[in-house]
């Protein structure tokens, strides 16, 4: 008997995956556990007790809230309890056979992941987004809808790339970066930088 699949999370991503997986997914029995944001951020101790890791795989579907740290908190909570994760690849997405996609990833409708591209665990790729040849998106990142990530470009862990952003070939976007302005980024973006239309220049975190 195949292992069951538990969809857990809240918000738009949870609702979208839930709508696309009525009852079962690729022949596997599905259960859905809707959480509050607070429970996802600090999962209660007994949250997963009804599910045994040997019988269930997980999909932790939480959006970009808290720079993806909430999804990561839920992912880590389950990992520490021995659960394995599935990834959700929409049937219309095109994944090159040489590309690698980690666990608990979400690849939405008509997204394209090019040759030798790599997507780290716990990362979401929005609808119609394109990852070029040898593009790397690190762990717990968020790529919004209709983004283009050029060949050999890189997006760091926990970064949020909002809809419509274009990252030029070879450009490296650091970790914990937020790109909210839909434009072409043709220079490297340092770690912990925030591009927002309200501000004349990028906002930075210094430590």
């Amino acid at each position, binding site marked *: 008997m195949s292992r069951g699949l538990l969809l857990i999370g809240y918000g738009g991503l949870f609702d979208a995956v839930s709508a696309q997986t009525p009852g079962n997914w690729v022949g596997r029995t599905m259960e859905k556990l809707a959480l509050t944001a607070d429970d996802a*951020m*600090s999962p209660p101790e007994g949250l997963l007790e009804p599910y045994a890791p040997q019988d269930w795989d997980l999909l932790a579907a939480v959006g970009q809230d*808290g*720079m993806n*740290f909430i999804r990561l*908190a839920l992912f880590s909570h389950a990992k520490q309890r021995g659960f394995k994760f599935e990834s959700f690849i929409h049937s219309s997405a095109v994944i090159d056979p040489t590309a690698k996609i980690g666990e608990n990833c979400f690849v939405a409708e008509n997204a394209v992941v090019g040759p030798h591209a790599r997507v780290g665990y716990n990362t979401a790729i929005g609808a119609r987004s394109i990852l070029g040849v040898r593009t790397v998106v690190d762990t717990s990142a968020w790529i919004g809808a209709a983004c283009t990530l050029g060949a050999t470009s890189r997006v760091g862990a*926990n970064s949020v790339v909002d809809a419509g952003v274009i990252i030029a070939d070879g450009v490296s976007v650091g970790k*914990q970066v*937020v790109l909210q302005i839909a434009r072409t980024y043709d220079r490297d973006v340092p770690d*912990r930088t*925030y591009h927002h239309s*309200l*501000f*004349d*220049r990028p*906002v*930075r*975190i*210094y*430590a």
Partner: protein
Amino acid sequence: MKPDYYLSEEIFRREQEKVFTRLWIFFGLTTMLADHNSFIARTLSGIPVVVQNFNNRLRAFENICLHRQNALQWEDSGKRPLVCRYHGWGYNAEGFAENIPSDAEIYRFDPKERSGLTLRSFHLEVIGKLVFINLSADPLPIAEQFPAEFIESLRSSSEMYDSEVLVARVRTRFNWKLAYENLRDANHPPFVHAQTLAKSVDFHAVIDEAQHRRSENVCEGAASGDRTRQMELLRSFSFGGPDTALNELKPLEWHGAVDRFGNLEHYYNWLAYPNLHIASGSGGYSFTLEQHNPVAPGVTELVVYWLTAKKKRPYPAMAAVLQASLNGGFRVLEEDIRIMEMVQKNLHAGAPLPRQGDYEYLNKMVEKWYSDLMDGDFEI
């Protein structure tokens, strides 16, 4: 105040000279200057200034190379030696051009000229983690500008700042004075911030009768050339500490990771005249610093710092906490900016003078003091 005070280029120039080059001005945080060669660069009163760490010694210099006037540090902050990118002139902790590549071969300065190649330096004071600069060659003691208990309050609160800080800069279209008139006006939050700040804090304008009487005495009196009295008045413009009680302090996961400042569930508020505002809307778990740098009569650069209280253990998601503070905090700031830009936009030479009520005693005193200063009745 008279519309001219917000519109006139001539008054702006006089204000830069009489206020901003004479008073101590907030410049940045020591946490951003912690390492050798770390620096912060800003423009104050039209003068580019760099504060740089030279082996744990903070020095402030004019950020212009003595050779061909190129900026020595280009970024707002960072870590690199004080070396010009144009022709490689390098400066030491005394501001002296210690290293000039090919000095003897191609420059051939005479020894007297060579020994005088030293950057203009500025006086610098550190209170807790706050760095202040004074552009005057002969600055007033900082204790003449700020009361002793206020300096102690700034010191003790800023010592609790964490080293991770989110810094944003935005150019606003209003005169800097409008920002501080607004900050001293406790009657605006229920109207301007009804959907944001006023939901968590019940701001009420109250009349301090003693201050009100003092304000009447100050404002009704003739222009005063008594510097001692005027400096005493100046000190009363800077104050701070716990303000109004918070309606509710929602516990957040990261609160457990920081050493909170104080233990009151209050909105904290510090105003350091002329242009620094510090607030904690989270009962001492986090802070926002706002610095308004005048650029032109109708243009002010706003620099905002968001930070939490000092971490007591690593907290990997701190970037998300700071980003959430920015998103929430900037909504409040935007509400203020929108009002002040509208006020500025409608000002003209014949605009009606403001009719202020008794609760606005502090603004009235600041205005009288400022008018006396601008009119040349006294000097700082």
